[in-house]
């Protein structure tokens, strides 16, 4: 998974990275994943503000005019 994330072959890491750098990269990856997870969860938590199209039409009430096909001359 890590290799796919960094696009670096394992041998390259073993030969060129230090333990400190590897751990730092892992920490940064975890931090990023955490931020992404929170960013995804946030709209879901705020999802109560989202309404279905039926609810929207209901709420809009008289301000929405539904034009039927017949009225537009479509048969």
């Amino acid at each position, binding site marked *: 998974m890590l290799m796919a994330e960094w696009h670096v072959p394992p041998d390259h*890491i*073993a*030969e060129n990275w*230090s*333990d*400190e750098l590897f*751990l*730092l990269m892992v920490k940064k990856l975890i931090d990023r994943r955490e931020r992404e997870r929170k960013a995804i969860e946030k709209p879901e938590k705020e999802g109560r503000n989202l309404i279905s199209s039926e609810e929207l039409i209901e709420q809009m009430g008289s301000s929405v005019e539904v034009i039927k096909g017949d009225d537009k001359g479509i048969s």
Partner: protein
Amino acid sequence: MAKKKRSEEQKTLISPIVVVLGGEEISIPVLRMRASREWREAFSKSVAELPGSVKLTDAGDTEELGNALKTLLITMPEKCVESFFLYARTLKREAFEETATDEEVAAAFDQIIEVAFPLGKSLLRAIERIGK
């Protein structure tokens, strides 16, 4: 002297470890993962030969770990010096044995340990594994 933690920049750039030996600042290149693992294995073997009186596994935090390492330096100084120069392979041991003080070598060894075992408790875990 308070130990200075390596910055993210130093870790990212794999900056050398700067130690003081014989009164002068010496740069020691940080070993890459494969070489570092080999060093750790060699070091672990040395520690495995320690007398039971040195209980590094009892160390609970960094300060205790530091104290445990001091004990290690007191009881097995030769092993520590040997391990140090195994890590600092660019340094000529003979050149520093005459000039460096025990305190300097202890501080330098401490710095090496911190870099070679970047997860503070890795050393403890390594020692625990050896102990089993």
